């Protein structure tokens, strides 16, 4: 049996185009916040699955071995076979893949924990039912405790929550809506495990989990700006930039130069460079020509093979350019900017 979840993992290998290693994907799946891994995720369109498959090394090895054994994967080049490509190509796979929102997982996960625990707690209190909390997260627990205690007109608010969820889920549709709704626990009904949701949707449990993650992520972005539900995201950041890079960015904004930022923060040159690459990847506006001469920017764009994000061929063809500079140009090209 081939499941959609396998397709998603195969697609992630396909997107790497044989340009990165097994290790690189491992770190992306685990959501390692290192510069290299963030860049891999950004350039190879793997951000949606960032950190969503926290495999151990052992399990990852087992997974790749099984892909190879089933004739889907060439491990030496880390590319898919024809059969593997077939499985990665259906639209259903890329649809699911691109909705997963892994790059926002801290934000979406915590919002889910808060909301689901709140709903369970509030509705159970309302119906005077004892309950067994579905979330074991201390931060979420503390947050919900504080909220539940506040005096306010809860009923209309709860009705708004209900309405907002329903409207957004109608828009997103099944199977996502079912996967999300059946995860909720109320006063009388306990949420379903992924196995149970899988049985409802006639898929395997791993796919059911991805449907939930995709549905929940899509829902949060579907909500109107003034949605009451967004209160559950209060104080959470949906930013992709690492805290450390953000620190450097703020200093740049205050008008400091690269050298000043570096001496102020006492970080290595390469670290600050990584921060600048993050800015180039994530910021809407970025002054690329302050870091790379315009002539070289153009050269990079012209020399790049449309389908590749490999740095080395460019590096070898342009005198006096650094890998760091190529990354910066790539980042802006990836965002759709053009300089020629």
């Amino acid at each position, binding site marked *: 049996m081939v499941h959609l979840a396998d397709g998603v993992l195969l697609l992630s290998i396909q997107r790497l185009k044989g340009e990165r290693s097994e290790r690189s994907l491992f770190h992306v799946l685990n959501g390692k916040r290192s510069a290299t891994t963030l860049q891999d995720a950004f350039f190879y369109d793997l951000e949606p699955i960032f950190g969503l498959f926290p495999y151990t090394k052992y399990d990852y090895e087992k997974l790749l071995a099984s892909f190879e054994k089933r004739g889907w994967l060439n491990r030496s080049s880390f590319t898919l076979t024809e059969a593997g490509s077939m499985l990665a190509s259906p639209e259903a796979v890329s649809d699911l893949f691109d909705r997963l929102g892994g790059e926002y997982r801290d934000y979406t996960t915590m919002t889910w924990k808060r909301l689901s625990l709140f709903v369970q707690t509030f*509705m159970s209190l*309302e119906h005077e039912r004892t309950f067994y909390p579905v979330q074991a997260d201390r931060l979420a627990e503390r947050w919900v405790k504080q909220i539940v205690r506040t005096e306010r007109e809860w009923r209309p608010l709860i009705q708004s929550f209900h309405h907002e969820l329903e409207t957004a889920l109608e828009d997103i549709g099944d199977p996502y809506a079912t996967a999300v709704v059946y995860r909720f626990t109320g006063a009388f009904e306990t949420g*379903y495990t992924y196995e149970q949701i899988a049985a409802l949707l006639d898929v395997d449990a791993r796919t059911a989990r991805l449907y939930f993650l995709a549905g929940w992520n899509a829902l949060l972005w579907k909500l109107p700006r003034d949605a009451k539900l967004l209160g559950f995201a209060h104080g959470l950041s949906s930013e992709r930039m690492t805290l450390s890079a953000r620190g450097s960015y703020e200093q740049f904004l205050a008008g400091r130069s690269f050298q000043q930022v570096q001496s102020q923060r006492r970080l290595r040159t390469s670290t600050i460079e990584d921060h600048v690459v993050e800015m180039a990847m994530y910021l809407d506006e970025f002054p690329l020509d302050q870091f790379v001469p315009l002539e070289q920017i153009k050269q990079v764009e012209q020399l790049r093979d449309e389908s590749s994000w490999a740095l080395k061929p460019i590096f070898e063809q342009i005198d006096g350019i650094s890998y760091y500079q190529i990354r910066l140009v790539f980042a802006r090209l990836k965002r759709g900017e053009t300089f020629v």
Partner: protein
Amino acid sequence: MFEKTLKRVFGYDSFRPGQREVIDAVAEGQDVLAIMPTGAGKSLTFQLPSYIKNDGLTIIVSPLLSLIEDQMLHIRERGERGVARLTSMETLEEKQEILNHLKRYRFLYLSPEQLAVPHVTRALARTKIQMLVVDEAHCISQWGHEFRPEYARLGELRKQLGSPQCMAVTATAPETVKRDIVEKLALFSPAQFVHSANRPEIRLIVERLGSEDKMRRLSELVHDVPKPAVIYTATRREAEALALHLDDALFYHGGMSTEDRRLVQSQFLRDEVAIMVCTSAFGMGVNKDNVRSVIHYQIPATLEAYMQEIGRAGRDGEPAFAVLLYAEGDERIQQFLIDQQYPKDKDIRLAYFERDNGTSLAQLPRLLRLNEEDPVWGLLNQMLAERTLAEAVDWVKDRKRARYRQLGQMMDYALIKTCRRDYLLNYFSEQPVKQSDCCDICGEIVFPPSEQLVSKNVTDWKHRLARIFSFD
């Protein structure tokens, strides 16, 4: 006057049989060894004295995160806020926060590993301790069925804490294990309380059949036995496979995410699912009174484990059923699991050889292809520190032999042609008991007609959502 506290704090009108005596001894300041079957109200016996004496912190050492979580949940449910835990789940800051404010707490739960962390031990040594409770104390004994190396240091740690009053509790412990507990924890002429291991409300059944018939028979049984029911298997994979095969069954094992584990437990507690298929990870600390049947799809490794697992049935005192399915050769899986818990002979030799030739301890796990978290490595590490090579090899051989013997005793239970209850009680050094509805040897056991317990409510998502948000 204890009754007043019982009513005020716990909301009960009277003690359950045996609780009072234990509490008396604790209140008098004696060391205590209490062997009480699951469901007899162990935790109350060390919690209530804290309210009577109000004389410092009660520290409870417990081996499993799920157990700790569960007990804390119960304590908090009755409104007690002075309870904290130190486990692998807390961040460093949270732990420090707790250690800095120990005076705020009445109860502190922790794992033996956490207690052994030097700055934790020191912080606790500086505070006023009313009592140290060692839960699941059988884990301390190498002769016990769940020996944990981390438990071996508890005696020494107790000393470092200033030898506070100590209470050891466990559900089951034969003579050898009892002696080990008293000695290892250095209990001072402890008051001993041993409740009968007999659970008269549980009918004992063994069915012998061929391996190929087990699955079919299980499906029938699941249909016939009263529910809710728990099915025990030996491996996670088998638990998943059986749950998939049976209707209205969920699996539960240690490899699941916290959220899924909680969803499964909550469904089972609320009778939303009738059957749980699980490994031994399920059950410890799950308080569900109305479990009617426990089925063993695989033979457990020891009689103690078996008693503990069937003990989840019939806690409300109503009739319950324990069915063991045994096919010849089933014991091999337990043999395999036993072997896996000890380092192999050649690995022991290799480890000693490498160590003696200057290889650092840090490199050994990789050389031996062991995960550093693997308990086998923990064991090996401990042996390297405490034993010679010859001693280590012998020790493992002895240990395995003892475990095989225990497994043999478990098999005998399945194979005997005499009263099964007698056999169990004899194992725990108790006198035989005559009762009707005893076991399949003493007379045929008939299952009462079983009612449909669970009503499935699968509707489209909009209805489900509306129900979750409904105030009616």
